[in-house]
Structures are given as structure tokens and as C-alpha cells.
């Protein structure tokens, strides 16, 4: 009997302590209860235009999109080099003076290089990979680097799509892109 009573008191104070603890925990600082962290998982990624599209085989396209850029060279260099040499088996060097290995070395980490102190351009003859403006003809640049050989003049039928600009003029001020059709 006495033992039971003691047990009850102990149990009661334990419940009381626990509920106080729970109370102070859920009411920390009087603010709302903390919400669980919401996580997001990567689905797609792009740095430079058309890298996944042109250089990654069909079987690797999803995994390329869910690979961090610093891991891309180790995982995709071989596939990308195969694609380049399939596109242009006679590839020696390109207009940038890059060999196949050097060129793939540049494009295999799919990030867009940008300057924060100078002119921004994908390629304008002077600036190389210092950004990408809306009007940059990135496809012609990439076609030239893949097909054009060391002087950029090989395979002339394949080095330009002859679409040299957008179908609507861009704006001079924010948000820069043209209004939707």
C-alpha cells in the first residue's frame, strides 16, 4: 500500500515534469512550433547551352542532370569525347586551339563562366565564355567549335544554322526579355 502510493507520487511528478518539458519545448520563446525542414531534390541543371543535348548519350541524360558539376568530368568525359568524335571524326583542334581532350575538359563541367568586371559574352571574337547575353548566337559558336576545325571554316554547311537572332527584339531595360507571344 505505502509502496503503491509512493509509486503514484513518483509517476505523477514524472508526468508533470514531462508535460512541462514538452510544453516548454513546443512553446520555445512563445513563437510558433518549429516546422520540419523541407528538402528539395535536384531534377534538372544547365550551365552552358546544349551540353547535355549535344554531348550526353540518351542513356545518360537523366543522370547528367542529377550530377553536381564538380563530379561531371569523372563520370562523363569518355561519353562526351565519343560524342564529339562521332559528330566530327576529323576533329583536330578548334577555333579556340583546343584539342578534343582539352575541349571536352572545358565543357565537361557544365557551368557558365561569367565575368563580373568586364564585357559579358558567350563568344564575340574577343571575349570567350564571359557570360551569355540574350542575343548571343550560342548555337553558331558551338557548331563552329565542333565542326569548324582550327580555322573555324571547315564543314561550312554545318557551322551556322543561319538563324542569327531572336524572333522578337529584346528590351533595353529590365526584364530584358521580350513579352510573350
Amino acid at each position, binding site marked *: 500500500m505505502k509502496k503503491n502510493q509512493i509509486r503514484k507520487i513518483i509517476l505523477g511528478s514524472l508526468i508533470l515534469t514531462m508535460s512541462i518539458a514538452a510544453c516548454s519545448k513546443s512553446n520555445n520563446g512563445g513563437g510558433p512550433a518549429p516546422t520540419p525542414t523541407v528538402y*528539395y531534390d535536384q*531534377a534538372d541543371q544547365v550551365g552552358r547551352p546544349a551540353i547535355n543535348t549535344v554531348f550526353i548519350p540518351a542513356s545518360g541524360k537523366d543522370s547528367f542532370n542529377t550530377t553536381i558539376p564538380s563530379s561531371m568530368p569523372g563520370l562523363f568525359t569518355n561519353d562526351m569525347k565519343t560524342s564529339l568524335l562521332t559528330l566530327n571524326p576529323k576533329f583536330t583542334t578548334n577555333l579556340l586551339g583546343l584539342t578534343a581532350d582539352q575541349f571536352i575538359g572545358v565543357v565537361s563541367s557544365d557551368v557558365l563562366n561569367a565575368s*563580373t568586371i568586364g564585357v559579358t559574352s558567350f563568344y564575340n571574337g574577343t571575349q570567350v565564355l564571359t557570360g551569355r547575353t540574350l542575343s548571343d548566337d550560342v548555337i553558331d559558336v558551338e557548331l563552329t567549335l565542333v565542326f569548324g576545325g582550327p580555322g573555324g571554316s571547315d564543314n561550312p554547311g554545318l557551322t551556322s544554322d543561319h538563324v542569327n537572332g531572336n*524572333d522578337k527584339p529584346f528590351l533595353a531595360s529590365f*526584364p530584358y526579355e521580350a513579352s510573350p507571344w
Partner: protein
Amino acid sequence: MKQKKLVLIVLVAIATTIGGFLLASDHIDAPAVKNQTTDITDLYVFNGADTNNLVFIGNTQGLLAPASTAAAAFDSNTLIQFNIDNNGDNVEDLVIQAVYSKGMMNFYGPVKPSLTGLRGVVEGTLTTSVAVTPYGSSPTISTSTNGVKVFAGPRDDPFFFDLNQYHAILAGKAAGFNNPGSDSFAGTNVMSVVAEVPKSLLNSTGKINVWLTTKKREL
């Protein structure tokens, strides 16, 4: 003539080796994101009209016909993120994030992320919010107290490419491009996020590496 034939053979080989259709820029580039709100089309990074600022444009959900643009929407389960590497290791040192909620696009950063890589969280505190501009309306723009200017909504797809002719070449049906070519993206729209950021907020010594990611909320 001989060379032309060789090019054709090579291109047919490509079509079979690389497989499937080659789709332009990053539009519907991979099976898992095709026709999803997470599908990125293009990334642009360039000097603003005020060259003290850098403009980041992330476009998603490409090839929207005008008739379907009004119904196109951002997704509250998709985190759109500009990743910025400052030291050349291709790991993000700063992120700029855009998350949609109830008609508003909420922007976070530029801020150092607590997590890098494939799994992410919304980082830091809200920089500024902007109402998503409805189709047919002039752009709604918001500017934060630290000078970050933002926009979200449908825009003309700024990408241009004669994709159809490229397909014809790869399929062995053409030897080269036409002159003039025909822009396969003419008359189509994208869902666009634009952030113009003072360069002083980028902790940059002159060169950055940028990539755009979309991340899907874990359910």
C-alpha cells in the same frame, strides 16, 4: 561530293549513337523532366543596363504555344536556383533561389547555402517577393532594400535555333543548314525568372561560374 556523302554517313551514325532526338539548348533534354515544371530551357548571365549589376535569367517549361501560355504556371514544389561558384571549384558558394507560393515568386539570396549539391533547402531570409506577371500584362517588378530587382512570369523564349533542320541533318535527310534558316522556337514562350543583382553582393574577384538547377520538393 565525296565529303558530302561522308558527312551524311557520319551524321546518320550520330543519330544512332547518341540516340533519340537531339533537342535544342536544354529544352526537354532528358526523359525525367520532359513536360515537368522542373524542365529548364536556358540560363543567361550578363551585365545589366547598369553595369554595376549582373542579370541572371532562368527559363523553364519551354515550347509554350501562345494559346497555352495563360494556363502555364510556376509550381510551389519546384525550387529554382542559380548556383554561383566564386573560387573555381564548381561548388556553389552563393545561391539565388526562387520559390513560388500563392501567386507570388519569393526570392532568397544571394546567400551562402547551408547545403550544397543535389539536396537543398530554402536558404536564408526572404530577399524580396514579386507577384507573378499574368500572361498579357506588362511586367511586375520588385526591388529589395539591398538592390536586387526581380521578375517572374511568361516571356518570349529568347533562344533561337533551326532545330528542325538540325534534325534533318542528323537523320541524313539534309547535308547542311539552309540559308536563311528557320527559327524553330519562333512564336513560343517560356516561364521565366529574372534577378538583377548588384555585383557587390556576389563576393566576386572577377570570375564566377554559374549553373541553374531545379529541385523538386520531397513529399
